[in-house]
């Protein structure tokens, strides 16, 4: 009886397979490609109608970067509101569709196909694991994306529109600043604590380059992003006689390193990449030790006196009075401004299709964001669009927790640095 039941089931499976094959044989069509002409004689394909341009956000409002992610989303939206209030771009209003992947590549991979058909490009794509997983999709779909992840290792993809400079250059400039201030000297030993992965590995490239130029010895310490107590590492660095410590870490690890730096009586200056600091740290017991931290970042700090930054943060405080205030807001706004330049250039060229937008990007040689980041040049693929940074020091008395100590500058070492995918 069991055998009979099995046979019956097998027959049904076979039947089902056969019927689907039959259906498969029903036809074969070519996919339609190429754009159509829309309002204003502009070529369009995905994400653009006669009245709207839709851009996507794949952000993080529930994962490990939720504070930064929420700030970035808010910054993107503030930009869109400003643009729309000023009449839009190319006669169209800008709309933003947001998805939250929680900093998980697998979630992003599922959400992407749902978002992709609706959008022209990504105004913000957060997270290096997510970016790595989506890279083949971005290439396949000819999509332009502004990553909220600043590794120069991703610049081999022409669909990546880097906003500002990369981690390696942040470190090069930051070390140059410390040397200009007399805090380190040629031949010194410095420590570098980094998270193994795209973020930390790229930051380390910067200190290795700078060390080569100035005969520094680097005491490297690799951690994973979940190691939260760096006391042992800092103790070891004290033993090695470091004159400064570079951090390419999470904010939690930054707090631990700085607390140890103070508790051990080491008290050396600490240089951090842009994501190492979160204003929430000022509410932790490590707050009093944070003053040694210099943050090197391509975007202006929240408290920057730059007029455009003031305008954005004022707007933000009015729109989201209770939200955390961090550098994500100005960064998000800047991403929007760069997109605006790209879209305007594409509109002028009469091609708002995905391919047209990517072409338009390469024509941009000096995108001006009114000082939110340095002037950006997208004409040489593979090279970071700018090398300039702001240096800020932690200061609990200012909004956002960071006080600007050096205006936008590019060190000679950063000028001569060759990024991994830079041609020439």
């Amino acid at each position: 009886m069991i055998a009979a039941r099995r046979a019956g089931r097998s027959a049904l499976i076979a039947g089902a397979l056969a019927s689907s094959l039959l259906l498969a044989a029903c036809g074969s069509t070519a996919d339609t490609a190429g754009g159509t002409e829309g309002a204003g004689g502009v070529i369009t394909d995905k994400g653009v109608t006669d009245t709207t341009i839709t851009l996507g956000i794949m952000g993080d409002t529930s994962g490990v970067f939720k504070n930064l992610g929420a700030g970035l989303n808010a910054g993107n939206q503030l930009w869109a509101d400003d643009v729309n209030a000023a009449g839009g771009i190319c006669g169209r209003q800008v709309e933003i569709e947001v998805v939250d992947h929680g900093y998980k590549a697998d979630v992003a991979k599922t959400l992407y196909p749902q978002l992709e058909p609706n959008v022209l490009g990504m105004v913000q794509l957060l997270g290096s694991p997510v970016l790595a997983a989506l890279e083949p999709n971005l290439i396949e779909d000819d999509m332009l994306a502004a990553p909220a992840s600043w590794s120069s290792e991703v610049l081999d993809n022409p669909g990546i529109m880097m906003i500002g400079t990369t981690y390696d250059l942040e470190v090069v400039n930051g070390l140059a600043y410390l040397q200009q201030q007399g805090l380190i000297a040629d031949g010194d030993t410095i420590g570098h604590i980094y998270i193994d992965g795209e973020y930390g590995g790229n930051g380390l490239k910067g200190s290795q380059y700078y060390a080569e130029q100035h005969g520094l010895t680097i005491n490297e310490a690799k951690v994973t992003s979940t190691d939260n107590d760096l006391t042992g590492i800092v103790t070891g660095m004290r033993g090695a006689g470091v004159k400064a410590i570079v951090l390419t870490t999470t904010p939690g690890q930054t707090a631990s390193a700085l607390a140890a730096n103070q508790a051990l009586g080491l008290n050396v200056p600490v240089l951090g990449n842009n994501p190492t600091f979160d204003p929430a740290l000022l509410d932790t017991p490590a707050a009093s030790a944070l003053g040694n931290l210099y943050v090197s970042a391509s975007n202006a700090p929240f408290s920057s006196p730059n007029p455009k930054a003031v305008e954005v943060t004022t707007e933000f405080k009015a729109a989201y009075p209770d939200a955390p205030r961090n550098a994500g807001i100005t960064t998000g706004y800047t991403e929007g401004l760069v997109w605006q330049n790209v879209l305007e250039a594409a509109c002028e060229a009469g091609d708002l299709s995905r391919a047209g937008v990517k072409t338009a990007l390469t024509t941009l040689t000096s995108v001006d964001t009114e000082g939110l980041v340095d002037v950006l040049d997208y004409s040489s693929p593979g090279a970071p669009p700018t090398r300039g940074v702001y240096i800020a020091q932690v200061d609990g008395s200012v909004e956002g927790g960071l006080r600007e100590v050096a205006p936008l500058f590019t060190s000679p070492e950063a000028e001569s640095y060759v990024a991994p995918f830079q041609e020439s």
Partner: protein
Amino acid sequence: MSETLTPPATPTTTPPPAPASTPGRNWLKIVATAVFLVVLLLLPVIVGNGGVAYLKLAQYILIGAVGGIGLTLLVGQAGQLSLAHPFFLLVGAVGYAVLAGDPEESDDLVGLGLPPLVAVIGAIVLCGLVGLAFAPVAGRLRGIYLGVASLSLVFLGLWLGQSLDMFSGGTSSGRNAPVFALFGFEFANSTPAPTIAGVAIQKQQRLWYLFLAFALMSYFLARGAVNSRIGRSWRAVRDNEAAATSMGVHVTRVKAGAFVISSAFAGLAGVMTALWLDLVKPDENEFTGTYSLTVAIAFLAVVIIGGLGSVPGAVVGATLVFGLQQFFLLGSQQFGWFADAQFGGFSAVVVSAFVYGSAIVLVILFEPGGMAAIGRRLLGRRRSPDVPSTDDGGRTTPREDRS
């Protein structure tokens, strides 16, 4: 005694009691299975080209199902707790990338350029062998001791993945997963694409059929194993090692064998993960990521929710654990659920974590047999827990064994 290779005496003096079945019920089951299979086969048509995200979700569930089936054999049938599943997933994914990788792709990466099908089989065999290398441990420990020992493999995987970047591509950006191809037919987008009922069969649709074939193969192999002598020796070892030995079962060998088979299933799931993500990339830390402790716990949840030892249960468990969160996320995007979660509050991720956490608690409290027991009750095949079944040494625990 232990030298003997004689198969364990099979105490099947009487055939198992016929399920309390009426012909009508059997037909119901057959028809339901057939309808289910047809739905699976036509899923790309049902969701259409606009619903690729749901297809991607369904593929993900199949990955969970293949891995979950492997783990349920080990945990439920052979009674060995293992948390090493993500490690074998990683070995499978990296193994496939190395075996099928284009040798010309990069100077820093090892690629042997084998045909993808050979690479898939090779990756599965490799995982089996790695599982075998763990056999001295797996054969000697049981329960929580084995669970903790196997956990070390996850950490080993993290370290190896970061160190051996000529194989894994490194944590920085990993390496591309080689495109699967069968006799020259690539599982990638093509122009023109064949269509079924007007739906273009592109990369994701093709991958769906590939994954479905992998999953069905795993399902029937596992069912076969459970219902055969192998399955009986697993259950004998699980229930009482001394009794199993006295019946001629080589306990150490059976335990090691269960570990090898479970690892091979995980290896296939690893290959599927690589194809699904288009990427092979070791994790940046041990707690989150594709091959992390979180995944180890997710697979354990699959097995528990499904009902220990039940192969169909593992499939249902995978649907809940692997599908739910992503389904909520897709729904929240499409229908605007949880729209006010911008600055904290209930987001799709949080809600789905609650749902699957409470599913585990409810299952453990009210139905230790899991979804499998619930399904069996619905199908009217519930055996009285007090009746010793004839084929497993008079165990009085309910349920799961042969479903």
